[in-house]
């Protein structure tokens, strides 16, 4: 298998991200280098605007390529513009090229495309948030790292091979370690960077071990079946080998367990969540938003692709508790159901006593990972239709989760810029100090809590419905109970904003581009909630590929 010229437009968004990263890194040289505040602000804004413009353009190109907004009809007139669009869309998920991954390693189907769009949009909103911020040291490098990490996430969303998966995860994580510890003179930030790095290194080790076991199984099966070839790391190939070998062995199951654990660290599922509150609290707030949203989206898509293409043999029931029999605990769906249960309980209960807003939201984000897992649990359904409902609900949840978390961390960042603190108490009387910001905050928090008609409500609703259909009724009941528990701590945030009187009445200014980013997120939260069909029709495309 060779890399063909027609593969270039298929990975165009990734290539453009790499070019943008290099541009941002290099353009820093042409800025004024001085130690005055004005010069540093200028340098910071130059890098930020270049990164934001670039990411915005890549987002538009990816949208055109996807064909979700506009699909060029076959009989369109031939001119310069339509040729560009046609060439782009020929590399998009709708073309027949997309049915086979590039070199067997990188799929460019609808699942990848949706992942790309969400991740690039998240990066764009994050960069907008930082535009008006106090200048960071080395802005060029700061934005290069953000874009590099975005590139890694796009690759994660599309990787369909073990080596590629590992490299994509590393490319995502390494910049995030640096970014989490970016404020070297702030002890919490340094701690966050260090902790993230150590936990990440350990999870990479676990992941690699799982990969080596899985590869070992595949290679053994290939030798006994007399087939050769160097494609034994591809998800599809492993699935074939497993299917031909008959009964899956302990070795394969162990490999799968380690793979789930390794990716579980990235998506903060409960036994592997220990790092996230400290990292979320210590990292610079926009980076926290980025880690909490984009990297989780990419990891969940990767987890979905890995489990459903490689281990469909190991799928089982969604029950783990009722009825109480050992034999009902089968396959990865049961395991994920159990993890979802733990994640929901621990995430929501641990959020209750928090006094730091970022820490509280970190636990809330852990709890949301539990809801997201329910979408994966729905894969245990016997009907293909119900399984498709599971993936659709998972993707819808991911999109909604991304916009509302970017928004809520964004509001915290605006307040943090002014008050230099992220305790809940600094939110006191926000309604009196900046009503617009308080309203935006309310929208995001209501959406997180799952109050209709915001997108957070529909996300939870679809996930519950998919899980119920798949036979995980007990999990849905747990989900409902924990949702009610979560209302308590979300309303605590709103109580601070609206009821508790502030120490001072000094208004909190919202700089222009931060406000733009927040308003964009809020609009998405509302529109996706009022008209969920806009995005559900797009998500329906995924099922044709993934829902075999």
């Amino acid at each position: 298998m060779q890399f063909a010229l027609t593969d270039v437009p298929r990975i165009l968004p990734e290539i453009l991200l790499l070019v943008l990263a290099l541009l941002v890194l290099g353009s820093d040289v042409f800025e004024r280098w001085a130690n005055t505040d004005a010069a540093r602000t200028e340098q910071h804004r130059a890098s930020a605007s270049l990164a934001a413009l670039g990411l915005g353009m890549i987002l538009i190109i990816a949208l055109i390529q996807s064909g979700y907004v506009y699909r060029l009809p076959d009989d369109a007139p031939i001119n310069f513009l339509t040729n560009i669009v046609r060439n782009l869309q020929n590399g998009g998920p709708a073309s027949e090229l997309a049915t086979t991954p590039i070199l067997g390693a990188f799929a460019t189907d609808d699942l990848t495309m949706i992942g790309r769009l969400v991740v690039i949009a998240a990066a764009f909103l994050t960069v907008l948030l930082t535009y008006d911020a106090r200048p960071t040291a080395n802005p060029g490098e700061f934005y290069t790292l953000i874009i590099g990490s975005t590139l890694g996430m796009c690759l994660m969303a599309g990787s369909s091979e073990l080596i590629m998966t590992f490299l994509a995860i590393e490319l995502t994580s390494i910049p995030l370690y640096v970014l989490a510890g970016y404020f070297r003179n702030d002890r919490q930030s340094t701690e966050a960077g260090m902790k993230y790095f150590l936990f990440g290194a350990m999870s990479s080790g676990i992941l690699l071990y799982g990969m080596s076991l899985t590869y070992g199984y595949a290679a053994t099966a290939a030798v006994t079946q007399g087939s050769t070839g160097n494609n034994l790391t591809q998800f599809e190939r492993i699935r074939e080998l497993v299917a031909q070998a008959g009964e899956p062995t302990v070795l394969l199951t162990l490999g799968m367990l380690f793979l789930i654990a390794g990716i579980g660290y990235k998506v903060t599922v409960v036994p592997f969540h220990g790092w996230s509150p400290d990292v979320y609290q210590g990292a610079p707030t926009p980076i926290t938003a980025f880690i909490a949203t984009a990297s989780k989206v990419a990891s969940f898509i990767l987890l979905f692709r890995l489990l459903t293409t490689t281990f469909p043999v190991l799928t089982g029931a969604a029950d783990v508790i009722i009825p109480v029999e050992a034999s009902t605990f089968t396959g990865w769906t049961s395991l994920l159901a159990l993890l979802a249960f733990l994640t929901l309980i621990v995430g929501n209960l641990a959020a209750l006593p928090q006094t730091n807003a970022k820490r509280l939201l970190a636990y809330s984000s852990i709890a949301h990972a539990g809801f997201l897992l329910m979408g994966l649990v729905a894969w245990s359904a016997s009907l293909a239709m119900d399984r498709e409902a599971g993936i659709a609900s998972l993707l819808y949840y991911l999109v909604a989760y991304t916009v509302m978390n970017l928004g809520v961390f964004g509001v915290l960042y605006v307040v943090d810029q002014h008050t230099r603190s992220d305790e809940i108490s600094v939110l006191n009387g926000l309604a009196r100090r900046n009503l617009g910001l308080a309203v935006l905050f309310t929208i995001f928090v209501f959406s997180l809590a799952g109050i209709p008609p915001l997108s957070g409500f529909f996300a939870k609703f679809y996930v519950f419905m998919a899980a119920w259909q798949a036979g995980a009724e007990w999990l849905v009941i747990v989900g409902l109970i924990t949702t009610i528990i979560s209302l308590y701590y979300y309303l605590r945030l709103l109580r601070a904003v609206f009821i508790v009187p502030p120490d001072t009445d000094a208004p909190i200014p919202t700089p222009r581009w931060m406000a733009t980013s927040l308003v964009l997120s809020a609009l998405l939260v509302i529109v996706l909630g009022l008209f969920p069909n806009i995005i559900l029709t797009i998500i329906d495309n995924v099922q044709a590929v993934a829902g075999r």
Partner: protein
Amino acid sequence: MTFELMMFLITAVVALTGGIGMVMFKNTVHSALFLLLNFFAISVLFLLLQSPFLFAIQLTVYAGAIMVLFLFVVMLLGAERIEDTTDKLAGQRWLALVLALILLIQSVAINLITGSNEPPMQELETLALLSDPATLGAELFTTYLLPFQITGIILLVGIVGVVVLNQRVRTAQDKGQIN
């Protein structure tokens, strides 16, 4: 005694000398040089196993790059002579010795049980082809092109990260926060 066996014995003695010398010597620079000797010997072992690519990699990466790094760090830190301090973990050496023994027994046992050193299944020609540097290079630039390129990007990002984290503090505002 065949030529191969003779070569193996000589190389093995050299490798063992390097390994033991590295552990025994007090001067860190001497230890590093003995480690270098060990690396060279092992690269010759790879050549005896008919894998010229591993031989070249062992020489360039281990004996070349990593050793230079070791020596740089040792000399920069001025840590040539580390005085003999007591072990922080009591009984560390004995534990290490026992574990090494277990490992040795294990490998000998596996060798005795599974029996042979013959290559599995495939003919020698295919194996020789697989270990051929040209084949490996072609694979890297065709089948594994994407992972290969991404490795490059990871290295770039890693370098940027290291540079950022090691920059001197520039501004007065940041200075106020140090410790």
